[in-house]
């Protein structure tokens, strides 16, 4: 009788396991949602940004910017990038209202004409200031803009690392077929991303380095200090780094309006 009960219990356990376990897609989405939750609550962020462009021969060019991000509840964040270098684009500003699912709203302020121009967010795959980053790489990364698949877990010196593949929902507007992300459980943010073009060929890899911890309203939020993007096809590289970064800044909503760009 005991044997029968044991067999029944084992049978029930074996048969109910698939119903309790998540599919790779569900697990991927769960990880993405966790990342979003853990990294939210930063309120506002300001930083000075430097982008170093390195060509295949090792020649370096430096670009400088200033960035402000305001967290928006129930929608994507609002951000302003002010270009500081090279000198001919000094004072040019890009305002982005990112959205969870819809296309982002974007405006460009051209100081020479004092003109605020609405721009199409269709050119996401264009290079950002001649770098290996595209506008898509640096733009809003909301959970809703991708579908996910958990590939595997890996062990590293900082603990468990989730390896997740993500696919753009709006395939036509993305330059990528998929991205593979390595996400340490410690940071709930990527430390490495591989970008595959629409044909499925690996085109770029990004290493997210020098993670720093920021305390915002009692919450620990991790941000990378730099992103090192390498184009495996052209051998060009770009390093995007943040200085004087502050989180928890209470930025005025009025600063993120097109009239305030002038």
């Amino acid at each position, binding site marked *: 009788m005991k044997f029968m009960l044991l067999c029944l219990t084992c049978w029930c356990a074996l048969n109910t396991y698939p119903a309790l376990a998540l599919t790779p897609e569900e697990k991927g989405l769960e990880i993405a949602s966790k990342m979003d939750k853990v990294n939210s609550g930063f309120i506002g962020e300001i930083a000075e940004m430097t982008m170093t462009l390195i060509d295949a021969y090792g020649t370096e060019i430096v670009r400088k910017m200033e960035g402000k991000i305001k967290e928006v509840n129930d929608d994507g964040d609002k951000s302003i990038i002010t270009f500081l*270098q090279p*000198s001919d684009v000094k004072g040019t500003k890009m305002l982005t209202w990112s959205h969870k699912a819809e296309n982002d709203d974007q405006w460009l302020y051209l*100081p020479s004409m004092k003109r605020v121009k609405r721009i199409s967010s*269709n*050119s996401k795959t*264009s290079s*950002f200031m*001649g770098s290996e980053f595209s506008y898509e790489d640096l733009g809003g990364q909301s959970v809703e803009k991708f579908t996910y698949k958990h590939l595997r877990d890996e062990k590293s010196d900082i603990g468990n690392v989730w390896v997740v593949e993500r696919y753009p929902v709006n395939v036509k507007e993305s330059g990528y077929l998929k991205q593979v992300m390595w996400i340490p459980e410690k940071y709930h943010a990527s430390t490495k991303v591989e970008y595959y073009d629409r044909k499925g060929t690996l085109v770029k890899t990004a290493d997210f380095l020098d993670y720093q911890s920021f305390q915002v309203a009692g919450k620990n939020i991790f941000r990378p200090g730099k992103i090192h993007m390498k184009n495996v096809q052209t051998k060009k590289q770009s390093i995007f780094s943040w200085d004087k970064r502050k989180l928890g800044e209470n930025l*005025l909503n*009025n600063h993120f309006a097109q009239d305030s760009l002038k």
Partner: protein
Amino acid sequence: MVLKFVFTIITLVLAQFGCRSLMAEFQDAGELRFETRKFKDDEVDRTIDDAMAVYTRAEIKYFQESYNATFRGYALADSKDNTRDNLTIEDLFFTYYLKKDESASLSAGYKIFNWSATEAFHPADILNSQNYDSNIESLDKIGELNVDTSFKTPYGNFSLLYLPYAQAPKYPKQRSRLGASVNLTRPVWVTSKDETNIQNWHHQGALKYSNSVGSGDLSLHAVYHLNTVNPIVGKRIIYEHILFFSLPVGIEFTPYYFRALQLGGTYQYALDGGWLIKTEAAYRDFLDDEVIIQTLKGNRSPQDHGIIAVGTEYGFSMEAGGESNIVLEFQTLVGPNKLARSELSVFQNDVMLGYRLALNDTLGREFFLSLIRDIERQNETLYNFNYTQRLNDNWKIKTGFRVFDAPKKDTYATGLEAYHNSHYLFFNLSRFF
């Protein structure tokens, strides 16, 4: 000339060194540009077919928590044609925030406004006077003296402006290839049907509303001012007394500017798939339209009219990270007859097609090609091509050409005909600070 040189040096020095110690509160920018342009020889000795100029521009902004101050201006000195020399204040204003969240502000001083949504045609962008020694589809502006109070509300932004000084446009002189081949006298402001004067101090005002809703940007405005976009150039025969006779010795041309009420607005909308829809419209009601001015072409009065510009822009990414934009715009003037329309605007019924290719590379290489064609008047086309490239972080070149193909159809040139055969090549070398 000496003044301009001093201005240039002071502003560049200020921009470069004066503010370094207070970087947190100051922003500065500057440009020193060497301009050359070569017109097609018109075989007229009076006109100057070359230009070789030094252009300098400086901008300084000072920020504090509750206020800020801005200065921006440029100077141009041309060694071939000193009638081009000019010193222009674009911005010189002080803004004080009435509320801590910067939702209400009061500013006063000279200011450039840009109310435009479209690329080539700008019926809504009416506030500033312009310098006509620049590209006709994107004229340089002159700062307008104003007191401006603005309010940001959840329902949109409201601005109320008082403009006490009517700023006259700058026109190229007689020797310029981009002018009407005449020197204009001091402007006359028509401030009522019985009153003209040469004083620039007049009460003018404007109200503007703007809001972004979804993927669209809307702005509406009402402006009461002395309109400087649609002047009537009057002629007066000058007589000289020789012995007992009064003999005509020349003609004097005077621009007359009239009071007008303009109601207008702009709307831009981003469609899915990379398309932008843009539109601008304005209705200009001249308040003294019974005044008659004697011109070379006969008697003229200001004509009420509507002007509508619509356009679309499509942007897409290229394989190697570059970016392309195709622009198609159309402007039409409604109300007056064909002749009056052609006298009111160079682009009274025109279509513009443009293509921009930005390689988005480290040199920032960019090509722009456009044509503006009159679809009402025959054989009036403006071709424009330019190429820009960075040489390094501070130096940049811009080169290109403009072709004006608009042969004269009557005794006197109208619209783009005034520019016919004034084709030119240009090359600019800029150092940015």
